[in-house]
């Protein structure tokens, strides 16, 4: 069993309630931070921990916090991003559902560090029942003096509010989230200005993911230095992975980023292997936006080294032969899955979720979706593959927000690694309606590139 910092107590009977959470050592970190540390001490501790944003981009949290502008007389805000809508990702939901006080405690400490007296949790609208769980936890924390005015007689005031979104993946992008929280359409803003200077209602704002803010609790408890010792290199601490697809044990797992991808997939402690004794074909290791990898490149890098479940190793090979940790949404596909069909659902997803502000994204996602529908209905042309390639290429890097890139990358990687499967779809259109291309050569050992 690896180290567990977030989910260790998640299955203690009654942990959702304040009493049990407190009895199990909860709110000790909040007490320590508010009573014995200055806000800057907390920021320093988070810096030392090496914690990187768990929402997808992996930006160092302490550094982000230190960018927050602090002009005299203007309130600042912390906003927790609980929009969780990246296909394959369901880890924040797990934290909030099972151990809501951990997030609330993390928010209290982080609000103290950043000087946010009014902190908002922006949660995807579909997680309606979790709103009740969070509001209950907030009320309990307040009843016990952890929120409200003059918390623990420190002079620090803090309120936490839960705001429900209403079904829009784009509102997970931090500036779209802020627009939405202001009661507008979720159209991302042009940066700069960055939220750290002009965010919510033009006030300095920090937006962080649910898991990131929850991780602040163990960091304060064990110190940043100790936290940094867990994991490897710049992948410090633990990471939640939500695993799904053709595996025996789908679910949310906390890993310490030292295990190999192979172990994660096949060990009974984690995914428990591929379902029905099938073989592994491909995997999207960090949520739908990151590049898909065939089995051979997933388990070993192009250099023939073991690939590990951490930021650096998953990214080894860049976009040519690697992928990304992303949001930790780990989607496993077995030998019976069709890469074209799976990618088609993602193309459809991004078309549906594009806010429509920039033409490369709006038009590009719409074309890609149409071409995939054509391929799927057996009417594809060989030139469609290059056309898809060109469209994704023209979106990538040419848009206001990263949704455009997120839509381009899955298509690029699917074509890069599974081009012969795309071709077969076109040359064997009729057969492709009845059966899948299968595993083909995708698990075969590759020549090692030095």
């Amino acid at each position, binding site marked *: 069993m690896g180290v567990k910092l977030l989910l260790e107590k998640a299955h203690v009977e009654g942990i959702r309630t304040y009493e049990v959470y407190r009895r199990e050592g909860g709110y000790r970190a909040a007490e320590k931070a508010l009573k014995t540390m200055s806000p800057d001490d907390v920021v320093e501790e988070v810096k030392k921990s090496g914690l990187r944003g768990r929402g997808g981009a992996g930006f160092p949290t302490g550094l982000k916090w230190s960018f927050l502008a602090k002009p005299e007389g203007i309130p600042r805000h912390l906003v927790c991003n609980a929009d969780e809508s990246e296909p394959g990702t*369901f880890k924040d939901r797990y934290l909030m559902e099972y151990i809501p006080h951990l997030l609330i405690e993390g928010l209290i400490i982080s609000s103290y560090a950043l000087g946010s007296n009014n902190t908002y949790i922006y949660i995807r*609208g*579909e997680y309606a029942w979790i709103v009740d769980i969070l509001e209950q936890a907030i009320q309990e924390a307040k009843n016990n003096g952890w929120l409200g005015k003059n918390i623990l007689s420190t002079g620090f005031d803090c309120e936490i509010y839960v*705001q429900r979104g209403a079904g829009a993946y784009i509102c997970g992008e931090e500036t779209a989230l802020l627009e939405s929280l202001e009661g507008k*359409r979720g159209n991302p803003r042009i940066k700069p200005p960055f939220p750290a200077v002009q965010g919510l209602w033009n006030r300095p704002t920090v937006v962080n993911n649910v898991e990131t803010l929850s991780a602040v609790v163990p960091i304060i408890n064990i110190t940043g230095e100790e936290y940094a010792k867990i994991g490897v290199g710049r992948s410090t601490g633990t990471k939640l992975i939500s695993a799904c697809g053709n595996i025996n044990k789908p679910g949310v797992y906390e890993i310490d980023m030292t295990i190999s991808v192979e172990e994660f997939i096949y060990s009974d402690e984690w995914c428990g292997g591929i379902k029905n004794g099938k073989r592994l074909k491909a995997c999207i290791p960090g949520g739908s936006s990151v590049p898909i990898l065939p089995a051979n490149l997933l388990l070993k890098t192009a250099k023939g080294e073991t690939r590990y479940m951490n930021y650096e190793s998953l990214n080894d090979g860049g976009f040519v032969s690697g992928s990304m940790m992303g949001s930790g949404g780990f989607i496993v596909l077995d030998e019976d899955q069709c890469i074209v069909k799976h990618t088609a659902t993602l193309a459809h*997803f991004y078309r549906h979720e594009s806010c429509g502000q920039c033409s490369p994204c709006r038009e590009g996602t719409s074309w890609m979706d149409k071409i995939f529908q054509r391929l799927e209905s057996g009417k594809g042309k060989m030139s469609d593959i290059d056309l898809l390639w060109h469209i994704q290429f023209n979106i990538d890097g040419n848009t206001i927000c990263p949704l455009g890139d997120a839509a381009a990358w899955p298509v690029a990687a699917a074509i890069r690694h599974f081009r012969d499967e795309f071709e077969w779809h076109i040359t064997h259109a009729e057969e492709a309606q009845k059966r899948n291309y299968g595993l083909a050569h995708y698990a075969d050992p590759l020549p090692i590139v030095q």
Partner: protein
Amino acid sequence: MAVQFSQEKMNKVQEIIARYPEGKQKSALLPVLHLAQEEFGGWLSVETMDYVASLLNLLPIEVYEVATFYTMYNTKPVGKYVFEVCQTGPCMIEGSHEIIDYIKEKLGIGVGETTQDGLFTLKTVECLGACGYAPMMQLGKHYKEHLTKEKIDAIIEECRKNATINN
């Protein structure tokens, strides 16, 4: 149905507005639209949207813009029970299409349609954050996960029963 919140809901609206700084009551728009949709028949008519605009001191267009942007707001009437089945990749490989086809056949409606008795609407939606428990759908406030044909039968049965009790 006259569009007017009860006193209890009005208090809730005030409580929501109080979460934001003075003059920033526009931030209350999404939560208040959710409240309005729940209260006034599961969808947002022009009358309802205009009412919300007046409550928050907004121009009607500011409300229409938002209501049409977010997929959870219905700008057309829907059935009493809306089946929102996820069709994105991870659910697709676990058989969401078969589930959708089964619901279509069982209720005799297509995607986006409502049964004649006004009880059921079928919608397809994108990833709801339940990929490990696929196939799945949203029904009202809750998720129905690990769907099978038998589960669909039971859910439909239960909805019909509840509808008769509530009438």
